């Protein structure tokens, strides 16, 4: 929100700071109120999940009443309930649930990666999609589909997406930093360059691919969870789980990093190591998401941003909160894609971009206004 990339303060030394957000912060002027917000938000998001999951499992081309969904789940858990007929049971457990679990995993990964990335770059506009890391990871995935690489079995796409994603994060990081900070302009321009290059590579791979692979790639590029299976869930799970488990451990240090690199070091943070670990985690999470679902943008931008506005910028809530919020948002979005235009299915990435881009635009305008210009 406050992007102070320039060491020079746009505010004069003593005039009252012209701050567009004063009103927005006024409502949580009381520290007590602010401490309660994360709890309320967490409770709200968990409740949303508990409602969304059975609803999403029931809705679709083959409707299953929510009561039946719960009954089947409790039956499988051995807590009473009853199995449904064969078709319903199959739709529920082989089609709907893998898709729901994938939506949750991908959403949590994207939300968490966004929060981490904004923290590491100390810049609220950083997001895997915006700065090109998603398309970087996509290059790895597309390459493996196009060239028919299967040397690591089920894992090939994930591993290649991870390696390409990692290379891209490192590249963007190195290119957009100067003097210990990343400027918004440099970051966005680097993103444009990286996205363009990744797009060219993807085009090249499509050119060399056979028809079946081209279809697979095109479909996958739009971002979708339509072909979810349990093996896909298993392919993503390790990356996502490791990333989501490690990320909250660095919350305090990310708070300190918002003071700048040197002040963080003065407070005992080994900044180089912190960055290295977190860049790895970001690549892991992004690769996990991209390798199964294609490019789904803006979740990592919008979710942490809204949570920061509601509960303050402390990363101890923001990181797990963004994972939870990302899961809710993506599950809801996926539900929308497959029910809004029934029987057709909208591409998920298209939907998130349709909603996310205007938000990004608004964010850019606001950041610009606060800084009084880019240059």
């Amino acid at each position, binding site marked *: 929100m406050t992007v102070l990339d320039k060491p020079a303060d746009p505010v004069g030394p003593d005039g009252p700071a012209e701050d567009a957000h004063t009103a927005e912060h006024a409502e949580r002027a009381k520290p007590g109120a602010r401490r309660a917000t994360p709890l309320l938000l967490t409770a709200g998001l968990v409740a949303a999940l508990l409602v969304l999951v059975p609803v999403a499992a029931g809705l679709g081309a083959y409707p299953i009443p929510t009561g039946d969904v719960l009954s089947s789940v409790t039956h499988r858990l051995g807590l009473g309930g009853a199995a449904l007929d064969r078709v319903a049971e199959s739709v529920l457990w082989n089609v709907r649930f893998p898709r729901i679990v994938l939506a949750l995993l991908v959403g949590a990964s994207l939300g968490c990666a966004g929060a981490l990335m904004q923290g590491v770059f100390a810049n609220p506009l950083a997001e895997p999609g915006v700065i090109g890391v998603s398309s970087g990871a996509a290059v790895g995935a597309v390459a493996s589909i196009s060239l028919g690489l299967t040397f690591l079995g089920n894992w090939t796409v994930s591993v290649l997406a991870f390696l390409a994603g990692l290379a891209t994060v490192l590249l963007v990081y190195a290119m957009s930093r100067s003097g210990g900070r990343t400027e918004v302009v440099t970051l966005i321009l680097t993103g444009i360059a990286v996205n363009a290059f990744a797009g060219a590579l993807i085009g090249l791979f499509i050119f060399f691919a056979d028809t079946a692979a081209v279809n697979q790639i095109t479909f996958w590029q739009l971002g979708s969870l339509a072909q979810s299976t349990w093996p896909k869930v298993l392919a993503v799970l390790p990356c996502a789980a490791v990333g989501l488990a490690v990320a909250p451990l660095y919350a305090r240090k990310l708070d300190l990093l918002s003071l700048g690199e040197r002040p963080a070091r003065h407070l005992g943070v080994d900044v180089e190591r912190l960055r290295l670990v977190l860049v790895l985690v970001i690549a892991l999470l992004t690769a996990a998401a991209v390798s199964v679902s294609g490019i789904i943008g803006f979740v990592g931008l919008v979710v942490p941003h809204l949570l920061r506005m509601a509960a*303050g910028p402390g990363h101890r809530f923001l990181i797990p909160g963004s994972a939870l919020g990302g899961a809710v948002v993506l599950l809801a979005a996926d539900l929308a894609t497959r029910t809004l235009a029934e029987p057709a299915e909208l591409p998920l990435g298209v939907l998130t971009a349709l909603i996310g881009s205007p938000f990004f635009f608004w964010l850019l305008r606001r950041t610009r206004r606060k800084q009084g210009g880019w240059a």
Partner: protein
Amino acid sequence: MKSLRLRGRTATPPPAAAPGEVLAEAEGLHVRLGSREVLRGVDVVARAGEVLALVGPNGAGKSTLLSALAADLPATAGTVRVHGRPADGWSAPDLALRRAVLPQSASLAFPFTVEEVVRMGRAPWAHRPGAGDEDDRAVAEAMAATEVTAFGARPFSALSGGERARVALARVLAQRAPLLLLDEPTAALDLRHQELVLRVCRERARAGDAVVVVLHDLGLAAAYAHRVAVLHAGRIAAEGPPEGVFTDGLLSEVYRQPVEVFPHPRTGEVLITPRRD
């Protein structure tokens, strides 16, 4: 588990320093930034119980010297010792318990509140038994000392430049490190708060800390520092108590501007003004 704990060894706070003990020193220090040699053989000592002011014209190397003492910049030649050990021999968490640094400009990427920012100063002390109460006390004291308590719940981004500077100082004080390195703490402040900040420096020195402060206002340096070091083109031009160091000749030469030093008619305190006749 055991190996994990060994690797994540918690840093140990230093024992209380005896008055006059050397907490930071530079010996024959040379520092090169890019192709420019900014420091060219500097010897300086910061002792517990003393306020040392670094003064000198723009570009003389004051901030660079402070950064070198803070272990931010490596020495090209010579040594920097913090608490008796070469600066690069400490880990970041160990250093954080030994020295606190106020940077020249305070910035913040996300809109934390003032109290949250000050509390960040307690980070080096996290995970210690009884840390909670001690943290609260240190934060409250630091905020009171810098007069920022009144806007503790406001976001840092909504403050004026001078208020931000005081909040940054409060964060540094809350760290409770025995060596304080302050880069122009008074630059954005009004008259009252300039005096306040330097009184805080004196108080910390009386409590046994070593305070090194970069100042542009020679009058403030003369009034509050136990010793001053005048930097000129990467070297120490003079060093000692302000009464001895601040002379017409030296200051006029170093600042390339005729300067007059005279006693205050009532208190006898050293006053410094440029000659404008």
